[in-house]
């Protein structure tokens, strides 16, 4: 699991790649978002286009990260869901929770 963080205006775009699974993968997401929040970042996009594998713990981590960001007055949006992640979110009704985009510019514009 690897995350590259880009800054576009006041939006942090986290390009995630590899596996988000129990243990290391979930910790990487959690720690990266925590650091952004601690440094005052409030607008976060998780780009999941290059995530090769996710398990229920990974889905749980997305939920947990979402609530952490919201509770600190921020916003978190998802970008470029893979077919698998889309299905996992859909059948657990989580697509009703997350704002999801397949276009980065649209995701960034949605914050304003």
């Amino acid at each position, binding site marked *: 699991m690897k995350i590259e963080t880009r800054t576009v205006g006041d939006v942090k775009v986290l390009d995630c790649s590899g596996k988000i699974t*129990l*243990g290391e993968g979930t910790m990487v997401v959690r720690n990266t978002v925590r650091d952004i929040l601690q440094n005052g970042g409030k607008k976060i996009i998780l780009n999941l286009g290059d995530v090769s594998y996710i398990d*229920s713990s990974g889905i*749980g981590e997305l*939920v947990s990260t979402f609530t952490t960001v919201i509770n600190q007055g921020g916003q978190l949006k998802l970008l470029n869901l893979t077919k698998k992640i889309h299905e996992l979110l859909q059948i*657990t009704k*989580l697509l009703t929770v997350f704002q999801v985009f397949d276009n980065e510019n649209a995701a960034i514009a949605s914050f304003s």
Partner: protein
Amino acid sequence: MNMTASKIEVCIGSALEYLDLVQIITDCITGFMGFDEDSAQWVGMSVRESVTNAIQHGNRLDQSKKVDILYEVTADHLGILVRDQGKGFRVDDLPNPLDPENLLKPSGRGIFYIRSFMDRVEFKTNEQGGMEVHMLKRVPSN
């Protein structure tokens, strides 16, 4: 596929490091049986979730306890049994992850996913008290 039934048994220690190994074995079996990519992916995830539960919640990461994974390969289906040496649990007591009050909980979706993706799932407590998850996935007809 024209073949006689085969059984493949895997026994691992209670360490999450084995999950990737089990995943590779499952992927090899579903590939051998001719599952399409999507079905193979969901079978792989279901086995991974079951084994994760067995290691983490069943055996509570106790290295002295084992997890058995038994694959039954037949011409028309793949049967999988995941067995731990824990104390078991009542699956009916698990909260429904789709209930509004559970929607934002970080855990509790693994068994829901297993039930969604496999054709048949049964949970049993074995004679020693551990949990057995019996799963079946039919080979998609061509």
